[in-house]
């Protein structure tokens, strides 16, 4: 077992992500169940291979693969895949696969293209709290990505019905109510995971640097993102922000997550920066 093996398995899994995207597109157009089923199998295989690749990597260099941007994105994709499978199983919302496979393929394409930045041994990156922090935050953000997907599908369906022109998406998408509740479930799941993820992050910071809060740009933006989602949930529960407004907010929220993930590290620096070099 070595790094080449891990790389090769990762590439195969990326190819499978691309294949599943093609399959989901066929399904979107001709609506044959066989395409959806096949694509779901392909994407599941891709996720398993993705996992194997990460395990091989971890065993080989005795560090989890989160040392540079390429690896961080790869982990993000892996969690997105897992979350997608979970929600697919829960709601059987077949069309969500189109969104998930596009996002996965795009991320994996970037992962493959990005040059491997040199990796320095980093003794700070160890311990239970760190792993919890990473897993929870990535899983939470993956769920929020799916909430964004459900939001986009919601807006497509809602637009057609409001305009009284049932078009391409009308029969391909489920009811707006279902899309809204899928979005809401993704949102609450993601928010809960993110909350615990942030807490474990603070605990980890306390353990390593002796303080919970360090005015790190990433910390600020993360808490900002968290506040936005908290506000959205509050508005939804107490002011009836459901449907369209909620869908738009989940999309905006996810864009901010992307910015926090990439932009802050690249533009503003901070102690999360090495992960995204």
């Amino acid at each position, binding site marked *: 077992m070595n790094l080449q093996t891990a790389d090769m398995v990762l590439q195969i899994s990326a190819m499978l992500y691309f294949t599943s995207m093609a399959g989901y597109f066929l399904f979107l157009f001709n609506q044959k169940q066989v395409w959806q089923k096949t694509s779901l199998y392909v994407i599941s295989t891709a996720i398993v291979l993705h996992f194997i690749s990460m395990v091989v990597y971890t065993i080989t260099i005795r560090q989890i693969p989160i040392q540079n941007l390429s690896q961080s994105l790869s982990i993000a994709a892996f969690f997105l895949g897992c979350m997608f499978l979970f929600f697919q199983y829960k709601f059987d919302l077949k069309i969500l696969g189109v969104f998930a496979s596009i996002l996965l393929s795009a991320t994996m394409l970037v992962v493959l293209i990005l040059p491997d930045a040199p990796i320095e041994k980093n003794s700070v990156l160890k311990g239970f709290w760190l792993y919890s922090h990473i897993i929870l935050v990535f899983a939470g953000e993956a769920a929020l990505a799916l909430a964004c997907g459900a939001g986009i599908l919601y807006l497509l*369906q809602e637009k057609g*019905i*409001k305009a*009284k022109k*049932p078009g391409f998406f*009308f*029969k391909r*998408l*489920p*009811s*707006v*109510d*279902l899309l809204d*509740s899928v979005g809401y479930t993704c949102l609450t799941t993601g928010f809960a995971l993110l909350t615990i993820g942030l807490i474990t992050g603070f605990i980890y910071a306390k353990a390593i640097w002796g303080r919970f809060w360090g005015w790190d740009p990433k910390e600020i933006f993360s808490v900002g993102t968290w506040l936005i989602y908290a506000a959205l949930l509050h508005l939804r529960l107490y002011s*009836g*922000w*459901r*449907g*369209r*407004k909620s869908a738009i907010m989940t999309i905006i929220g996810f864009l901010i997550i992307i910015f926090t993930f990439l932009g802050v590290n690249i533009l503003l620096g901070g102690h999360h920066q090495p992960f995204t070099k």
Partner: protein
Amino acid sequence: MSQIILIGANHKTAPVELREKLSFSNEETIAALDLLKQDKDIKESLIFSTCNRTEILYIPASGKQVDKIIEFISLQRDIDISEFKSSLYIYKNDDAIRHIFQVASSLDSMMVGEPQILGQIKESYRTAVSNKSSGVLLNRLMHKTFSIAKKVRKETGIGDNAVSISYAAIKLANKIFSNLSQKSVMLLGAGEMAELAVEHLISNRVKNILVANRTFKNAVNLAQKFNGQAVKFEERQDALKDVDIIISSTGATDYVLTKKEVKQAMKKRHHNTLFFIDIAVPRDIDPKINKISNAYVYDIDDLKNIIESNMNQREKETVKAQRFIEEAVLKFRKWLESLAIVPTIKALNDKISSIVEIEYGKTISSLDHLSQQDIDAIKRMTQAIASRTIHDPILFLRNTGDHRDDNLYLNISRQLFNLDIPEKED
């Protein structure tokens, strides 16, 4: 070759009063099938009867037996032949096959594409099977019918498009709400239109029905009919917090619900989705309500527009479905033609000769020490074994006698020896 005959009347040829007289209940169907089974002139039979059609599909032993069946219908339904003969259609062979394919695929329905018909035909077939009135031909025909109907439903969009107002409204409701059985409906106005709309909703089973009407008595009457509740017309805005779908059909000249009223109601219902179906002319529901988030308003014109575009779409799909059906008719005829004595014997002969040829060739090619004489002797022997083997089966097929069903034995022979050209099952 056996004939396949179909005699029937449907919504295109007979008015509803006549169709009612001609229709068979389940018990009547069973009794009628029993009588047909006893008849020596009818080998197989099947009756299907829905509110839109009554059809008898049968295989006569000889001739066509059309007059006999017409007389039979007249006796069974206690109706004079002259009363219904002109409304009957009589299809033979390919036309009969095509017709049953079309009926099952819902191309012949009053509402083309409606899905119930296939289930109804399956039910009639089950009745025929349990009465043993169907045989080899009808069994195969019906199985082909079900597979073609399934194919049409799956591969054409014929069932996708709503082409009646209430059906279009239901389809929309299903794209707005995920589960109609959890939703409540309020009727504004207790007229005939409201009643019609509700009948469709009932078949989709909603949770609860509220009726509001200016004349409270009418509201109570209609509510009783549908197991719902009546509310005062003045309470309609208040009731918005408890219902999800509003069907309005009052004769009011002004809007009975305004944007402001709905906006207030929206707050009370935590902005849960509301769907307004306005079938009144002039309109009852302020169209501006559609601008409120999570509220959808469709008036009669909107629904008509949807139906129109669906009609166009459906015509295209019908062409496709007809093509599938033509292919299936051809295939079925091919099978029917093969189900005769001479082709079966020929196919059997061909099959056994080709086996002999292949096995003989294989054996001889590995035995090069044999003389020409030995080779000839072996060849003669293999051929003799083969022809002796199929001698009795062929004799049996030639003299199936008149007390037996040729088709049954021919079909079994073809299956036993696998003589049919393999065809792709859909």
